[in-house]
């Protein structure tokens, strides 16, 4: 089965992926700030059992594991692939994960909330992401009975998530707006509509390769479909702005941009050592060139897959061992050389 980042998706010149996360808690356990190790371990085993029900009802297989038993590399690689959050990977208490075989759905156990259901799909497709998450939520609720209150809705550890417990987000590729230094303005602008812009890996992270996350802020007093509609409208505006800016950039500096795109390709094609930050920036140039039709390849090529593959954790995971930064830079260069398609 193809993973979300291997499929061709709508509007993926600007929107890399759409994601919906639902925060849920069980009535029977204290929240993360009060839960002790014994309860955490009981919580993880209880929630992990729904993997069986999910596999029965769904058209894909679900696997469950304890995150705390995984190696450091596995954890970092999972964070890089957006399967788990940095918080879950760092936690010392027993934590768990249920993951669908196509990586579309992942359920984090004992993160900030007891259960965090997450669905990712490629491109601009928030509705599908919500449908997936909503369906999983219904199946899980049959077994787990999530804490819910008539007035406050789904009860979450942090009051910023209470109500729907839902965060919808789009991962955006904004090279033209970035180079025009318009991101700060964008952040201020969309903030007025209850929407936030963050770095590639969410809260408190910086942006790499002109990739940003746009997500809803409010979770109460607004329904799930309203959240999606609201976010969609804003994302489409950003897409429009980015495309307009790209057109403008191309019309005034075609030669320079073309040179940059091919130069980036050349470096990645022949370099023997590449740092992850370099790799992200160069790949971002290539994606930009490919989206604008400046550069063409002999086969279908998903730059985002490569962008995840060059991250330190994923790279070491592929290598099967922990290596130092110099070896990593060499392995990264080799990995890119192997994955990069030929220009036609």
């Amino acid at each position, binding site marked *: 089965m193809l993973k979300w980042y291997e499929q061709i998706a709508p509007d993926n010149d600007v929107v890399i992926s759409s994601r919906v996360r639902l925060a849920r808690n069980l009535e029977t356990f204290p929240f993360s700030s009060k839960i002790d190790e014994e309860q955490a371990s009981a919580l993880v085993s209880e929630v992990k059992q729904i993997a069986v029900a999910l596999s029965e009802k769904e058209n894909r297989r679900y696997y469950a594991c304890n995150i705390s038993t995984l190696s450091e590399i596995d954890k970092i690689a999972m964070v890089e692939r957006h399967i788990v959050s940095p918080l879950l990977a760092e936690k010392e208490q027993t934590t768990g994960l249920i993951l669908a075989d196509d990586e579309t759905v992942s359920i984090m156990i004992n993160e900030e909330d007891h259960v965090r259901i997450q669905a990712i799909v490629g491109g601009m497709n928030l509705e599908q992401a919500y449908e997936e998450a909503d369906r999983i939520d219904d199946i899980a609720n049959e077994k787990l*009975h999530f804490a*819910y209150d*008539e007035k406050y*809705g789904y009860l*979450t550890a942090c009051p910023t998530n209470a109500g729907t417990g839902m965060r919808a987000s789009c991962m955006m590729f904004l090279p033209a707006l970035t180079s025009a230094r318009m991101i700060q303005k964008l952040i201020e602008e969309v903030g007025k509509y209850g929407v936030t812009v963050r770095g590639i*890996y969410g809260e408190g*992270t910086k942006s790499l390769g002109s990739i940003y996350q746009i997500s809803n802020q409010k979770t*109460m007093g607004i329904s*799930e479909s309203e959240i999606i509609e609201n976010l969609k409208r804003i994302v489409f505006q950003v897409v429009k702005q980015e495309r307009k800016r790209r057109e403008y950039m191309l019309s005034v500096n075609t030669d320079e941009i073309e040179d940059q795109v091919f130069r980036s390709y050349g470096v990645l094609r022949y370099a023997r050592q590449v740092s992850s930050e370099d790799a992200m920036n160069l790949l971002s140039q290539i994606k930009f060139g490919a989206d604008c039709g400046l550069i063409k390849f002999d086969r279908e090529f998903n730059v985002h897959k490569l962008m995840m593959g060059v991250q330190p954790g994923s790279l070491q995971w592929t290598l099967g061992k922990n290596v130092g930064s110099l070896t990593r830079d060499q392995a990264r260069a080799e990995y890119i050389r192997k994955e990069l398609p030929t220009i036609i």
Partner: protein
Amino acid sequence: MLCDRCLKRDAKILYTEIINGVKKEQHLCEECATDYTSFQMEKPIMNSDLTLGDLLSTLLDNYAASEQKKPGEVTPSLTCNSCGTTYEEFVQKGRFGCARCYRSFHEQLGKTLKSIQGAENHTGKRPKGFMTITSDRKLKDIPEAEKLSLRLLEAIEKEEFEEAARLRDLIKQMKKEEESNA
């Protein structure tokens, strides 16, 4: 020079450790350095600082301060009887201790939520079967009129509009009767 730890690979990193004033130097290879020290040249994404949490507690704190009553007057501290979290603790951390905290801090919570979320009532999804479970539980000990309005909500939820209309009329009639009795 070989690595001091594994004694196999070439040492490339000089790792200096000072613990309680005692300085210790080790020559390490990159593998051992990643394993035994914080040496990770590229680990940009794992430093999840909890800036939002801090921000939130400041917000909640300001709110609690503005609510303070006259000096000398003691406000009884709210404590969740299920997990023992106090309202102050919640304000400080910006996190609830358990699902029951919401009910325990009920009085203060409306304003707090309004300041963070701009609303204090959930309008989205309900878990399947939620209405029936709670209304059954509640039906035993609530007044007849409220019982009916709960049923009315449930009927609207299920899009049983004929039943809803019947219930609405029933409620109206009851109210009228009450008024005339009074």
